[in-house]
């Protein structure tokens, strides 16, 4: 076998193994990386003030006597934010790539796409012992967020009854409320 063919074979094998590892390992990071590669963008970590804000929000919930609903289980929020970047690309191709990568361990609950407004929302769900993991990916014209949280069975019911509304509330809780 010519040396070039061996090299090509080796590269293909490594790529195949890497993509399989993507899906099976840390899916949150794999999705963030996938968005970065597909759209040529870069995510930002959670700013320090937002982390401090999370503590403040929890305190606020306690002061209100627990009336403020919180969806995510304490300490379960994983958040990646993409701000003021271009998300140009074929969304159908992106959706297929995303579904192919997550299909093995996650169920695609709801996927909402608006071609005219260039907005996409993907909500995936999987079991995590007695609780449930939810992955919400929101991509807009200039911004995007990837949120993974753990839900209690009680909050899962809300998600199943109203997937779109609850998915939006989960993202808002992770990005807006926690930063107030």
């Amino acid at each position, binding site marked *: 076998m010519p040396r070039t063919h061996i090299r090509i074979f080796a590269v293909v094998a490594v790529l195949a193994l890497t993509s399989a590892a993507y899906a099976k390992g840390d899916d949150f990071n794999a999705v963030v990386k996938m968005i970065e590669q597909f759209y040529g963008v870069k995510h930002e970590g959670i700013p320090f003030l937002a982390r401090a804000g999370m503590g403040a929000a929890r305190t606020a919930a306690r002061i209100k006597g627990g009336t403020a609903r919180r969806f995510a289980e304490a300490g379960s929020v994983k958040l990646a934010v993409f701000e003021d970047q271009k998300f140009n690309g074929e*969304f*159908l191709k992106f959706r297929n790539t995303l579904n192919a990568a997550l299909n093995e361990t996650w*169920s*695609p*609950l*709801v*996927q*909402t*796409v*608006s*071609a*005219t*407004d260039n907005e996409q929302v993907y909500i995936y*769900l999987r*079991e995590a012992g007695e609780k*449930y993991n939810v992955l919400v990916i929101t991509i807009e014209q200039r911004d995007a967020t990837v949120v993974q949280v753990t839900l209690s*069975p009680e909050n*899962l*019911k809300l998600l*199943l*009854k*109203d*997937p*779109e509304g609850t998915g939006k509330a989960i993202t808002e809780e992770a990005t807006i409320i926690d930063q107030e």
Partner: protein
Amino acid sequence: MKTLFQTKPGALLIATLVLAIAASAQTPQTSRLELSSLDHLAAKASQTVDVNIDERLMRIAAKAFSDKDADEREIKKLITGVKGIYVKSFEFDSDGQFTTADVEAVRAQLHGPGWIRLVNVTSKKEGNVEVYLLMVGDDIGGLAVLSSEDRELTVVNIVGPVDLEKLAKLEGQFGVPELGIEKTKDKAKKDDN
């Protein structure tokens, strides 16, 4: 002279044919519709919603709702036995964004064996609403709703035993849109189109 069955290849061929016929006769009718032919409409739609509550999610849902609470017990009863809820909905900014061929690709599947169209259904929603049931013997094996308006196309597909009363209660939950469907009589008519 040996008959076909007496020769080794002949016997194998006949056995294979018999097995194939038996297998095809036993294959259960599936009420899951193939809707990927509509995917291209997403590029033109102002809003596309895809709900995929597959068997795995239905199991999770059934487990999540408790028997103790009356409301939850009702929901649990509704979804028991249901193997999947699939919704594809497109909204457009202008008329004529989908064709008869797009709708026909779905309707053709609903003209397959076992499917009947209910003629005793009305919808508060404007536009054309068709409701189909998949009959497996005397039992309902699935349900499909095809709703089309000038700027909207929606397909709801429930896999497993479900009836219109159940569908009405599922509207607005589990991603099933409000279709305003009402059953006016009890009879279903075999679709002969």
